[in-house]
């Protein structure tokens, strides 16, 4: 009994020590799948790496404060936290992607919309500033934490348009029978990037650079540089 308990304790200790030594990756990227699914796919693709995917900026800040070896997020989020990208996502040969305004029954005019729904990337003030920079003017921003929450803003008439990466427009349109119309805006946004935040970042960089194409595409990326 005593031996068995000792062996069990040793086993538990070994597991916990191994887990503590695993490189830690924190992911804060809005995708068209649930965070649970994104985290599961990343864990499967990155064996030996402890992956945490979060959907809210407050959760991101908490997890970051706990210590991570690498962080995957949009460069605008990384720079707001004083982090430098070590590896950047590319799409169709570019490091940035277009964003679109989407409205119901009419093509939204960036110069005239008064209320817009957007993903919460940087908290209230930061996200308001991000949207205003993209649209070039001040307006009321309704923030949501998930891609899927943008559509209800239009369904319920809470905003005149929603702002999102153009590549996600087809996802939104597939889920809805509203007459959704989009207009790309002039400014692009840099694609997600990986920042090193701890000593165990190298295996994470290596693993992310070799992610399956479909999983990278979920993150909006087709190549890592």
């Amino acid at each position, binding site marked *: 009994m005593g031996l068995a308990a000792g062996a069990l304790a040793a086993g538990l200790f070994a597991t916990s020590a191994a887990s503590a030594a695993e490189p830690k990756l924190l992911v804060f990227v809005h995708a068209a*799948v*649930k965070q*649970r*699914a994104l985290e599961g796919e990343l864990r499967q693709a990155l064996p030996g790496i402890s992956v945490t995917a979060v959907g*809210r900026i*407050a959760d991101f800040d908490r997890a970051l404060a706990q210590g991570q070896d690498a962080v995957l997020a949009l460069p605008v989020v990384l720079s707001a936290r004083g982090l430098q990208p070590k590896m950047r996502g590319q799409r169709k040969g570019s490091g940035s992607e277009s964003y679109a305004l989407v409205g119901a029954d009419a093509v939204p005019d960036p110069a005239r919309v008064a209320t817009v729904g957007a993903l*919460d990337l940087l*908290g*209230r003030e930061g996200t308001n500033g991000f949207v205003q920079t993209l649209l070039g003017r001040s307006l009321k921003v*309704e*923030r*949501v*934490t*998930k891609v*899927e*929450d943008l*559509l*209800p*803003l239009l*369904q*319920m008439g*809470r905003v005149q348009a929603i702002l999102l990466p153009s590549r996600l427009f087809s996802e939104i349109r597939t*889920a*809805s*029978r*509203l007459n959704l119309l989009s207009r790309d805006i002039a400014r692009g946004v840099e694609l997600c990037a990986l920042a090193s935040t701890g000593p165990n970042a190298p295996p994470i960089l290596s693993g992310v650079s070799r992610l399956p194409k479909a999983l990278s595409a979920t993150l909006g990326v087709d190549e890592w540089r």
Partner: protein
Amino acid sequence: MAMNRRGFLVAVPVLAAAGLACTPGAEKGAGFGYRELAKNQAASGRKETILVFMPDTTQTREVWSGMRDELGEEFNLVAVEVPGRGASTSIAEGMRRHRPSVVVLMNNPTVAGYRDYQLQARDRNFPPALIVMTSFLEGSSVGVSAASGISYEVPLITVVTNLRKLMTSTIDRVGVVARAPLTRFVQRQAALARREQITVDVEYVSANPNPSELKRALRQLKNRVGALWILNDDRLLTRNLIASAWLPALDERPWVPSIVGAASLVSAAQSFGTFAVLPDHAALGVQTANRIFDIADNDWRLPDGPQVELPLSTTTTVDLIQARERFALREDALAQVDRILK
């Protein structure tokens, strides 16, 4: 561990809020059970206080946490426990101690307690009140002055949009069994759902239906609709009606996916709800915080416009055994659900 029918029925009603753990630093005082569950001092140095009255449940804690994340930098936040309707004394004590700029009321008994407090108060100048986690708030008169809120029921339009992402079958017609008191609620939901080309087919039952009446209504509906939407109406979700009407009727062919609004109504052991679509409580806290920012920007008065909002963010749970056995799921369906029961 699998849950048998008895276990499922014991776990069922459900519609009342469940438990919220006490946070460290809880404060007791005044000798009648006044208890502060949590307190947050604003980093901004601003003086305004948001006072949250809430029961001690997991769900209300999640809403609190979403609010605290959003508001904690700018405003003082205090959570006061309200265990039940008799708690207007706790509410009065909280109001006396903190003189809040806004109060948040979580759940029906808390709203009733605050209404009692307002009736008894000498000072008739009440701060704006935001009501959350309250059943059938939209269109109802809660009797609280200076109140607005976010309804707790996930709108049908959201429920069906979520369901369409999961099922291969076309879902255009949704059936609902309702009692007369909920007619206006169902009509409003149906009007909103029409925007997504969803038709709502309603079978009305009496105020206190017996199992035969309910079973008959369900059998008729199942032949006409692509999905059933089960309202969180406690008169229709008694143990007797679940055991003698819902479960047998839902188990019969033709099988129709059923969507419920309570997590405990989905179980891998019983074919009751195929899917549960529930408010995302942390996101509900963020939505509440956004309304508080609107009030603050409006000089601490309720802004004009609709006073009741619908919840924007949801979580989806699936009974995978039932769903796979009876219905065809889309290839990527499981990437679109938050919780899988199997």
